[in-house]
């Protein structure tokens, strides 16, 4: 998990660093105008475990809620537009922004000098202290910055908290997203402490009686809206909107409602420090929804049924992606196999090279290269097309090898007899060799369809919310990993079992000449 996420972060970083100038240049000058023309502000955020920022309402996951949802709405209104959220992994939001997937990134993006190389930042809209959470009653718990040296401490990747911890000599454990999992690991003793921004600690640590948050702040982080390089006009418009929201007290009211109004933000907005926490209705609602796991009855009768629409849509996407990618894999695979078996020497080498290259590198790397790397060459693909191409081409290599095995299983004499009967090579392939080769190739093909169905989960990287991504989003916002895990397993089986059955039918049909009953 850790090695994978590190590799992913590295590759995305490399791909995006190279891709951003091109994408930014393409968008120059026009984003504010575009937003006002289409009367829609597309803002990128990670809905994966993002309370209180952006998350699915645990009571009804069909709705996206969070203080940044309300902030985005307020900013968009002042730009004369409606806000429309777009999903992306948190540590890739700036890459997706540079790629042009949305107009702004607004999701706890920390103000940091090095970010100004890849994007423009608005004035900060929120300031948070870094809070250290530990297990309640743990005598060995590190409670100071000095004490974390050599201890395992959880944080979000690329965050200020991570840098603070590394400077203090802690063994930092970073997570792909789910803030819930960070605190779960602390509760289960896999880490000794967690250092995260105040709002996160408030929403994930403070609702768990087993955890406590050490008083005081370990550092301060500020959040800003990120826009593409060259979009000064949009940045200025957003600054104007934020100033007005601060001046009229709307920002304070918003933060108070979510229970995250703090001294740091008060100082940032030039207001007196908060006296006593008032009633934060949104926080209370969150606490009521996730503080204690709901009963099985409530889950089965109320919560899971509400996930039906989300899962059904995701299952549709997963199925569509699986079938269309398999079709592509079969077509390209057949060409590669034919080239490898019947082509002239250079064609053969080319086919072998392509097969070995595609088969020998991880699908994840290929997807990142297609989605984040190709824009460098001016090729910007739609997420679905990128996912379809990545999966289809990756599996084409496997299909090519299946077909090759099938073709090689047909005796040479079959083709020779067809030739003596006057069939051309193509006719012999189509009517004599392919039907026999297919019988050998079908069982591994069935296997591949099922594997493809599962590998399609990797396309969440290119912002497609398919079944697995839907599950991890829901599990984080509803804080229910086991129950929803069974639900998503059922959805996968619902898709996979008919495909397996279809494969067996094809196998029987192609092998009917071997059955006694046929005569």
């Amino acid at each position, binding site marked *: 998990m850790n090695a994978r996420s590190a590799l992913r972060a590295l590759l995305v970083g490399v791909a995006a660093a190279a891709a951003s100038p091109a994408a930014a240049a393409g968008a120059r000058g026009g984003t504010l105008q575009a937003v006002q023309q289409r009367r829609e502000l597309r803002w990128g955020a990670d809905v994966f475990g993002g309370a209180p920022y952006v998350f699915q309402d645990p009571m009804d996951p069909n709705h996206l809620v969070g203080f940044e949802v309300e902030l985005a709405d307020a900013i968009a209104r002042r730009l004369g537009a409606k806000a429309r959220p777009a999903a992306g992994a948190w540590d890739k939001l700036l890459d997706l922004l540079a790629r042009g997937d949305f107009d702004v990134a607004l999701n706890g993006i920390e103000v940091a000098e090095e970010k100004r190389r890849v994007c423009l930042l608005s004035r900060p809209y929120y300031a948070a202290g870094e809070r250290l959470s530990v297990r309640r009653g743990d005598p060995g718990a590190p409670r100071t910055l000095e004490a974390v040296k050599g201890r395992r401490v959880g944080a979000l990747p690329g965050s200020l908290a991570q840098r603070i911890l590394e400077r203090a000599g802690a063994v930092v454990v970073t997570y792909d997203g789910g803030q819930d999992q960070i605190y779960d690991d602390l509760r289960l003793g896999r880490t000794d402490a967690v250092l995260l921004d105040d709002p996160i600690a408030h929403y994930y640590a403070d609702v768990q009686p087993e955890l406590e948050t050490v008083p005081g702040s370990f550092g301060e982080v500020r959040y800003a809206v990120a826009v593409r390089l060259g979009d000064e006009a949009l940045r200025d418009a957003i600054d104007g909107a934020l100033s007005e929201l601060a001046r009229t007290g709307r920002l304070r009211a918003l933060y108070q409602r979510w229970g995250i109004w703090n001294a740091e933000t008060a100082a940032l907005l030039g207001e007196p420090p908060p006296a006593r926490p008032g009633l934060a209705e949104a926080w209370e609602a969150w606490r009521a929804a996730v503080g204690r796991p709901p009963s099985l009855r409530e889950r089965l009768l109320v919560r899971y049924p509400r996930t039906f629409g989300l899962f059904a849509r995701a299952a549709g996407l997963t199925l569509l992606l699986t079938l269309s990618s398999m079709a592509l894999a079969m077509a390209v695979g057949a060409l590669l196999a034919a080239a490898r078996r019947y082509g002239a020497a250079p064609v053969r080498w080319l086919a072998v090279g392509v097969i070995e290259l595609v088969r020998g590198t991880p699908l994840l790397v290929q997807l990142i290269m297609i989605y984040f790397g190709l824009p460098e060459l001016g090729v910007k693909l739609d997420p679905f097309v990128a996912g379809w191409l990545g999966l289809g081409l990756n599996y084409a290599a496997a299909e090519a090898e299946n077909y090759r095995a099938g073709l090689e299983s047909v005796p040479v004499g079959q083709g020779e007899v067809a030739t003596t009967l006057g069939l051309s090579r193509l006719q012999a392939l189509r009517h*004599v060799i392919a039907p026999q080769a297919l019988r050998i190739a079908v069982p591994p093909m069935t296997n591949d369809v099922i594997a493809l169905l599962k590998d399609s989960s990797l396309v969440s990287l290119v912002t497609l919310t398919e079944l697995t991504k839907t599950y991890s989003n829901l599990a984080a916002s509803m804080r229910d990993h086991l129950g929803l895990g069974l639900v998503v397993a059922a959805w996968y089986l619902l898709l996979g079992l008919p495909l397996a059955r279809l494969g067996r039918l094809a196998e029987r049909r192609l092998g009917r000449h071997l059955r006694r009953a046929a005569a």
Partner: protein
Amino acid sequence: MIRVDALVKRYASLAAPALRRVSFEVASGQLVAILGRSGAGKSTLLRCLVGLERFDEGTVEVDGVAVRAEDGPRGLRVLHGRVGLVPQSLDLFPHLSALDNCTLAPRIVKGERRADAEARASRLLGRLGLEAEQGAYPEHLSGGQRQRVAIARALAMEPRVLLYDEPTSSLDPSLREEVGRTLLTVKESGVTQLVSTHDWEFARSAAEWVLVLEGGAIVREGEPGQIVG
């Protein structure tokens, strides 16, 4: 009629030529055996006559249509369909019924309508004693039945010449006579037949004329009674 003139075939991997100036002629409707030990060049000769193998020198002529060595690989195509082959391993199409084995090439190569092709194939199979087996897949037929399907499949293309590669080798010895009878049945249709075999007994009993192949050359020929092993 098939006429072979000074046929030479060399393989790059072999020092000696596989065929050295082989010449012979078989009149229309004749049944001729090519007799020789394994390695004598029988299979190579058959592969050249049927257009599966290029030859380096010489000419093959079938009913007035000639293929010369210098015609290249494309030249061999005129032999396809014109010269039929019953391979030693038969190579029936396992995924097709006996009937479909016989109708595939006429339908695809000649564009015959399915009904016409089936009617003709059915008559052919019937003449070879396979009325009841038309719908059966090769897997479910006996060795003798399979061989007759392979013959019917070749005859369905109405070749001028039909070649058999060791037709008795994969069969029970007791079936030798049956093969002989089948060849006579085919002879009634006027097709010229060439049978490659190492089986002296069979060659003597079935053929009208015998060519003896040794070391890639024809060393003797004559009526079956005159050829002595």
